[in-house]
């Protein structure tokens, strides 16, 4: 079965600083999803990556999938208190398989100090 390891487990940064969160898979990634979760709330979809070397950006958040499709990174530029929360990476199963259920990492808890 596929396992996703996220690092770091938690992160505290000063407002305005850049940061990077990593997600490493035990198997080739066919679809890699990044979500953000605040306490007591559901997961908010951020971005999805499929192709090796792919990079996507939304506002101050950039996600990349490496060429070998086994690692993804999420980079936040000039962090703000609104970026605080738990960031989760999720991967779906083999392309063409049944349900596209997602396997998630344990999450990275981000705190941003004003």
């Amino acid at each position: 079965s596929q396992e996703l390891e996220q690092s770091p487990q938690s992160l505290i940064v000063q407002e305005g600083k850049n940061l990077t969160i990593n997600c490493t898979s035990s198997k080739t990634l066919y679809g890699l999803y990044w979500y953000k979760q605040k306490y007591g709330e559901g997961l908010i979809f951020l971005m999805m990556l499929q192709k090796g070397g792919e990079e996507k950006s939304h506002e101050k958040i950039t996600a990349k999938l490496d060429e070998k499709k086994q690692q993804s990174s999420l980079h936040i530029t000039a962090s703000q208190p609104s970026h605080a929360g738990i960031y989760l990476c999720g991967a779906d199963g083999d392309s063409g398989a049944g349900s596209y259920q997602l396997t998630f990492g344990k999450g990275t808890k981000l705190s941003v100090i004003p």
Partner: protein
Amino acid sequence: GAGVSQSPRYKVAKRGQDVALRCDPISGHVSLFWYQQALGQGPEFLTYFQNEAQLDKSGLPSDRFFAERPEGSVSTLKIQRTQQEDSAVYLCASGMWTGDTDTQYFGPGTRLTVL
């Protein structure tokens, strides 16, 4: 437009009680997923529907867990004879299956506490 909604948001049950958790997916979404999230962990897959068909229930932890989606829209996750280990947040997600990807949009979850 409206997102995925779940009810109740919080449920406290005594051990041995039956509970029913409801999910209203985004209108028109074909796929519907249920996940269980323990404290400090990522969500874990329970079951998957495509319209009204339950295509994958490999993640259901025991036969006390049952899910249905009879008309291909609203879904209910039922847990019979609840145990303390069932305490978790239950998340529902829906998606518009494209044949290649199925980005899942999550509801706020139902936090179940079994005493």
